[in-house]
């Protein structure tokens, strides 16, 4: 597929494969709270480019008359009645966290 469909994604390499713009890769990494080094950034640009190329192939299919598939199963209405069941003991959650105080989990200071 041609890159003109998504000119803002990146460039084509010598083999004609999509290489993701490193700025875009950095943004995605930041959203996932990852900090790849330069070498990892380079390989991620290629790998993510390939994945997106695949999606571009899929996009080329005619899907105007196809219902979107949100879920692989046809299950509907999986609900439960509004009834309270006992919760877990507070100590369970305290044991799962490295630091706690007064029954609360303790995390680094959060702004906002």
């Amino acid at each position, binding site marked *: 597929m041609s890159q003109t469909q998504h000119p803002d994604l990146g460039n084509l390499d010598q083999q004609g494969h999509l290489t993701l713009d490193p700025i875009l890769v950095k*943004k995605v990494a930041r*959203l996932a*709270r990852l900090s790849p080094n330069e070498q990892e950034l380079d390989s991620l640009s290629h790998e993510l480019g390939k994945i997106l190329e695949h999606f571009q192939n899929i996009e080329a299919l005619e899907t105007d008359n196809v219902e979107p598939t*949100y*879920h*692989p*199963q046809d*299950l*509907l*209405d*999986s*609900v*439960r*009645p*509004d*009834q*309270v*069941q006992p*919760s*877990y*003991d*507070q100590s369970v*959650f*305290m044991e*799962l966290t490295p*630091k706690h*105080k*007064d*029954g*609360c*989990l*303790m*995390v*680094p*200071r*959060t702004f*906002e």
Partner: protein
Amino acid sequence: MSYETVIGLEVHVELSTASKIFCSCETTFGGEPNTHCCPVCTGLPGALPVLNEQVVDYAIRTCLATHCAITPLTRFDRKNYFYPDLPKAYQISQLHKPIGRNGHLEIETAEGLKKIGIHEIHMEEDAGKLIHDPWEDCTLVDYNRCGVPLLEIVSEPDLRSAEEALIYLEKLRSILQFLGVSDCRMEQGSLRADVNVSVRPVGSQTFGTRTEMKNMNSFKAIGRAIVAEAKRQIDLIEDGKTIKQETRRWDENKDSSFAMRSKEDAMDYRYFPDPDLVAINITPDWIERVRSGLAELPESRRARYIADWQLSEYEAGVLTTHPAIANLFEETATLSGRPKDAASWMLGEFMQAAKEQECEPQDLHMPAQSLATLIARVAEGVVNRNTAKKIFTQILENKVDPDAYIEQNGLRMVSNPDALKDKIAEIIAANPQSIVDYKAGKTKAMGFLVGQVMRAMQGKADPQLLNELLKDALDRA
């Protein structure tokens, strides 16, 4: 140049279900930290959320009352962001197929009825509570509130002033309370609003750049924040500066807002359909079932009070501000057969007590049967109105039974002319100056003597009879 303010509101309301939206933990406010929690609401690996059917029922009720079109196949999406109040690192919410769309509410403004569009209503889960610990300089996390069901009701930017925004909020709150879907206790955070504000020159058809103030939980603060933000934006424009699209925080103590984050740094939530949850098929049958059980809304009750019980527009309006007030009034009116008296007690003593105790009306102890009995005893002449007021306070404060209290404390009204005449003679004899004043045409003297007799009789005298007999005695003195 003159400007107009454009306001849109995103109202988050906690639903009053017994259990959380995707697990069976209780939703009770407060409690010891992290005691209403399980693997689902704390996002432990492998836990599977299952939707609480009551949440859908409540959402359908709200959609019906706000004239929203209900989405037949409604679905949940994941809204991804990292924040310690969200243990899964995503909030289960609705983006692509919210349960309701394109509704409206009619509000009464000074210029008449105005239709405020409702863009959409969606179901989602609440987040946990963060507490700053100044001693350790860290953040403490309590997940009790995490997973409590929320409805987000998003208005169109149709509101044009702080007054309109508050009228809309009050109307929405009373509808939610009458529907029984939420108690809307703002002090407990069960109703919160994100407020979007922009300004534009009067007559302009395009919107200005908007700012958002998140998580506001008092009507007073919302009103002041809108006024202050509109002024800030107009000042910027007049100074030739531009308005930045940003999230601002309102500081109630400083009566001003400050920027939190700007658009450039805006969250990218990367929404996608939640694979853990399946679609909900809201059939016409389901909608009809909910519709047939829908509580009578304030507007209809108000009309009924005016038509059936000859109450004034004002009286009916106040009585329908909260379901607890309306229900107590209706029950008392029916039990006593005296709707006018019931309205008078509700608007007077009851509202006064709620105001003095700074509590929600449903938190006051006032059984309809007690109030109806009290009204009946006044009408029958068993006690006078003043004594009845004291009994009313006793019911509120000490949960007394009115009839038993009247007997135990000998509060029956004294309507025996002989008993009254004796007391009157005593008081007149003790206050010769008052008789001189009365004869000199000072009507105040009469009031003074009525008070003296009343006091001597512990307030139990039949006031009408006392007036007649006293006047008679004075004229003959």
